[in-house]
């Protein structure tokens, strides 16, 4: 009853499935243990450098935070908890600029967003340097990227709240510039 072909078929299926989901493994990791101290990334708001163009400095941690669903979800929570939503609403902006569009005053790279949150910016963005841990700033930055559709594969479709913007897990950076006015409700 346990013929060898049966085992083989199962293994094949398992392999197929494994291949399908392995890619998504990293973004499912949930880091809930204690975390060690971290250094801030190098922050540079513009790629314009005297003496010729240079790539923006990349931080090795950026990848992890940006492509991890759990970290992005933590960022979404902090976005509400730390009153980011008070100024940026659900990403459409208000007292602060919109985050779901494709305009980035201080840069759209996650390291640059980290810098904006951590350092604050002179036209009204407060500095969260001591107000949030490094990990939390990464999480927030990763969530902000998801608002712009930069990492929609790890974004949640919605929160348990009033419907605001279209589902972020469906957003792509290409949509970010499009500003179709909302249909009149009612």
């Amino acid at each position: 009853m346990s013929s060898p072909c049966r085992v083989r078929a199962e293994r094949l299926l398992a392999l197929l499935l494994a291949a399908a989901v392995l890619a998504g493994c990293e973004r499912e990791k949930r880091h809930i243990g204690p975390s060690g101290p971290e250094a801030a990334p190098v922050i540079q708001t513009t790629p314009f450098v005297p003496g010729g163009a240079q790539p923006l400095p990349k931080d090795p941690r950026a990848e992890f935070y940006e492509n991890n669903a759990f970290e992005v979800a933590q960022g979404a929570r902090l976005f509400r908890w730390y009153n980011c939503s008070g100024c940026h609403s659900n990403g459409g902006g208000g007292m602060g600029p919109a985050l779901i569009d494709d305009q980035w005053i201080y840069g759209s790279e996650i390291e640059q967003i980290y810098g904006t949150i951590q350092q604050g910016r002179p036209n009204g963005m407060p500095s969260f340097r001591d107000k949030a841990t490094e990990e939390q700033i990464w999480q927030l930055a990763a969530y902000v990227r998801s608002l712009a559709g930069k990492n929609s594969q790890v974004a949640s479709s919605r929160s348990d709240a009033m419907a605001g913007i279209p589902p972020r897990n469906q957003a792509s950076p290409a949509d970010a510039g499009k500003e179709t006015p909302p249909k009149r409700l009612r």
Partner: protein
Amino acid sequence: MPHGRVFHRPQKGDGVQPRVRTTARSIAGLLGALALVIASSATARADEDGQWTMPAKNYASTRYSALNQITPANVASLRPEFTFSTGTTKGIEAAPLVVGATMYVVTPYPNYLFALDLTKPGAPLKWRYAPRPVPASQGVACCDVVNRGAVFWRGKVIFNTLDGQTVAVNADTGKEVWRTRLGDINKGETITMAPLVVKGKVLVGNSGGEMGVRGWITALNADTGAVAWKAFNTGPDRDVLIGPDFKPFYASDRGQDLGARTWPGEAWKIGGGTVWGWISYDPELDLIYYGTGNPGPWNPDQRPGDNKWTAGIFARDPDTGKARWFYQFTPHDQHDYDAINENVLLDLPIGGKARKVIVRPERNGYLYVIDRASGEVLSADPFVHVNSSEGVDLKTGRLIPTKAKEPKLGKVVRDICPSANGAKDWMPSAWSPRTRLLYLPATNMCMDVQTAEANYIAGTPYVGAEVRMYAGPGGHRGLFMAWDPARRKKVWEVQEDLPVWSGALTTGGDVVFYGTMDGWFKALDARTGKLLWSFKTSSGIISQPVSYRGPDGRQYVAVLSGVGGWAGVVVSADLDPRDPTAALGFVGATGDLKQKTTPGGTLYVFALPRAR
């Protein structure tokens, strides 16, 4: 088709000619009250000097200029005389001032003050003054970085800066005379209101009801800038300057320390009640009147109780600041119905007697007529579609909230009318003693609200609500109407597609002016509401038009164009209209504005062609 539709409210027994009948009735009403008209208070009938020295024109806040060169007959030939770019891209809510032969224009952040020389052709710049407010103050200004104007007082132009300072500038030289820091942006305090000077005291109040500030009004010595008194609008009686003279009309406003006891714990310390709107003054009674903003946060569950003294009106002694009476339009406000609107001081025949009243079109949707000596509400009538409340109980003075429209934590409560900006926000109305009508700009919007726990983190928003606004019944978002406060009814109304966010101006020529958010500056017949003239300006209009007599003796009308404000911040701050909750929900209603106008401030001054 940018022009609004004229809509005549049907009258009882109306036949085929409503317009004629309306006019006839107005005239009949006028005749009937002739004696009273003559006896009308000086507050509403100042002798016309052709100047415009304070945003509301006069202490009674009528925004009525008796100049009468421009009439319904000739208004069609109004044409721009000169323009002036402010160089700003934010919403301009201010009224230009005209003193003598100089016009003063104050801009939104960075709060430039320009003086224009009206004696020369094209009114060239005389001087400019830049107060240089802290840029970070932009980050704590709810609903655009506006400024609602300056005031002129004895050779000084006095105005407030976004970062919480009051500045007095020499009107001739543009040199700073004094500056006083009143607000702290790290607590979320800004100042956007236009000050008023009464008996040598500059009255200033703070903004930031969405940031967890504690509202106050203060009086500064107009010569030195020193604080004469400061009254908070929440907290114990000594802070509110409530003493033995305080005699509110209604029992619910009487008691010890209500400003603290109608709040849980120390919530009153961050409870709002700001003063970012209009102040009026009655020299006879020697009282100032001003309204207090919404209680904070918007989530009402965090502040059970009546939340005194927010969302109400104070009468105070201008010399000492001592409160005389208070009336709360919206006790325990649940929908951000700030009560900062203009108080138009009139003498009206009510019940056969002439009464000194305040006419107050309130954000909660009711037009109140209040005895300004006692604080008694004489009438309160809805002037737009209202379902957030069922009416005002005139016995107790209390608004009767609709149970089904009360926000519930976590739940979305739908179709609350009017929306958070109210039936009428800050944009002031105008009263014509000739037509005996109040001309009021209004909005027709409803909203969905979801409340949530608000976190007080100093310097960040303290709201606890998500809002999504949209057009009310009929689909038009704005209204401009004429209201007869004595007969307590609407006489005519014009429906506008976009919210009407500009103030009103009426003149001795029986013409009414206002602007629309897509940039049309309009003149209507004051008696019928008929559109007589319109002009498309460069940006949306959300400011207060004024009229003055130029050095050449001609009547001018001036208005600042420059879209923004809460209603227009979607354009001025380039918000994303895909988020209907953006800008506290206003983007839900005005998401299409970006396709209709662009930001940028310009002064427009109009006049009739010179007689040949």
